[in-house]
C-alpha cells in the first residue's frame, strides 16, 4: 500500500468533512497534537515492564479513544461524514475515572509536589501528560471558535472533558509506574 498521494505538498490538507485547509488551521493543530499525544502514549507502553499487561491494554484503549476523538476534530459540525463516526459520549470519561480510582487505591497519599522522572515509563507518562494539556488548550480554542460560529459542538465538549480527565489519568499512571517498579517519587524541595 502506498502511503503518499502528494496532495498535501503545497501546505494544504483535507479535513474529514472535505474542506481544504492550511496545515496550520486550528483543527489541524488540534488533531496534530492529539496524534503526538497518542504517539507518546505508545512510547509509555513500549517502556512498561513485561508484567504490566493490564496497564498496556488500558493504554491501548486510551489510544483507540484518541483516534476516535481525532476523527471528530477533523470533521466540521453538521458534515455528512459525521454519520460514519461513532458518537463520542461521556462514557470514556467515566471509564478513565474508574481507572484513576483503581490505581490510586494502591498508591501512597500525595502530600507534596513531585518532579517528573523516575522509571522510563513514568517519565514518558509525565511527557504524555504535558502533551495532553497542550492538546486540551488547542481543543479549547477550537471549541470556542465553534461555539462562536455554530453554537453547537456537544461532541467537542465531551472530547474536552475527556482530555482534561486524561491528563489526570496520565499523572496517576506516572506515579503508578514508579510505584510498581520500585522507584521512589522525586519530591520537590523548594
Amino acid at each position: 500500500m502506498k502511503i503518499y498521494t502528494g496532495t498535501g505538498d503545497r501546505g494544504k490538507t483535507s479535513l474529514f468533512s472535505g474542506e481544504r485547509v492550511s496545515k496550520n488551521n486550528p483543527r489541524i493543530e488540534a488533531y496534530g497534537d492529539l496524534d503526538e499525544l497518542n504517539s507518546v502514549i505508545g512510547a509509555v507502553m513500549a517502556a512498561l515492564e513485561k508484567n504490566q499487561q493490564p496497564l498496556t491494554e488500558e493504554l491501548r484503549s486510551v489510544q483507540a479513544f484518541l483516534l476516535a476523538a481525532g476523527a471528530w476534530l477533523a470533521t466540521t459540525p453538521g458534515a455528512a461524514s459525521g454519520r460514519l463516526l461513532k458518537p463520542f459520549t461521556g462514557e470514556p470519561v467515566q471509564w478513565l475515572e474508574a481507572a484513576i480510582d483503581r490505581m490510586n487505591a494502591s498508591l501512597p497519599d500525595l502530600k507534596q509536589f513531585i518532579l517528573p522522572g523516575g522509571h522510563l515509563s513514568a517519565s514518558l507518562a509525565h511527557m504524555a501528560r504535558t502533551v495532553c494539556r497542550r492538546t486540551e488548550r488547542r481543543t479549547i480554542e477550537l471549541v470556542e471558535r465553534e461555539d462562536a460560529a455554530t453554537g453547537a459542538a456537544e461532541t467537542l465538549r465531551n472530547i474536552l472533558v475527556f482530555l482534561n480527565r486524561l491528563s489526570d489519568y496520565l499523572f496517576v499512571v506516572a506515579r503508578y509506574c514508579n510505584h510498581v517498579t520500585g522507584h521512589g517519587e522525586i519530591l520537590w524541595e523548594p
Partner: protein
Amino acid sequence: MGTVNPKGGFSAALTGRQWIAPEILEFRLRRPAGFDFIPGQFVRFDMGGYQREYTMISKQGDATIDFCIDVKEPGHFSSAIQAADIGAIFKIIGPLGHFIHQGTTARPAVFVATGTGVAPFVAFCRTGVRGALLLHGVGDPGRLIYRQVLRDGVQSYVACISREFAGAGGDHFPGRVTRYLESQLPPGTYDFYLCGGRAMIRDAVAIIDRRFDGSRLFVEAYND
C-alpha cells in the same frame, strides 16, 4: 447513526459474473444477512491473508452486492474471481471507507473518475443522487462502463478520452479529466469527489487548490 464497520467479516457466495467491457468483469455476491453499507463504501476481500478492496456498485438493500474489477493487470484476486464456481464463498470485511455523498449543498458536486474508479458514482446514482457533473476518464471509449446508469443519474456526463482513438465519435472531451478541470470547468466553489489512480488525484488536487479555492474535496485513491 450510519453504517459502521462491524468487527470480523462476512461470508458471501458468488452468484454471477459478466464481462461488461474489454478486461472489465462485473461480479455479484449474495448479500449476507446483516450486511449493509452506505453508497461509496468498499469491502476488503480476504483470501487467506491476501487482501484486495473493491467498492460496491449496487444499491443498498439489493439482494446482491455487486462489484466491477479491471483484470488488465493479472493478480491473485482477479484470477480467483474469474476461475471461481458459482456458489463459491468469499470472505469480505467491511463495509469500510468514508467516501460517501455529502448531500446536496450550495456547492455543485463534481464527480471525477478514471477507469473503474467510477464504481462509487454508480452506487451514488443507483441510490438516487442527482445533479452532479461527472467526468469519466478512460483511454479507450470501449471502457466507458455504466454509461446509461450514470447518464440517467447525473446532470452532465462527460467522457474524457485521453488517447487518440479511431472512431471515437464527437460526444466526448478529447483529453484527460485533469485537462477538463483546468480548461473547461468554470471558476467557482464545488464539492469535488475524486476516485481513481493516484497520479490523477495528485494532479486534480493541484488544479483544485489553484483554481477552485473554498471547494471541498473527497478522495478515494486506488492503488496504481
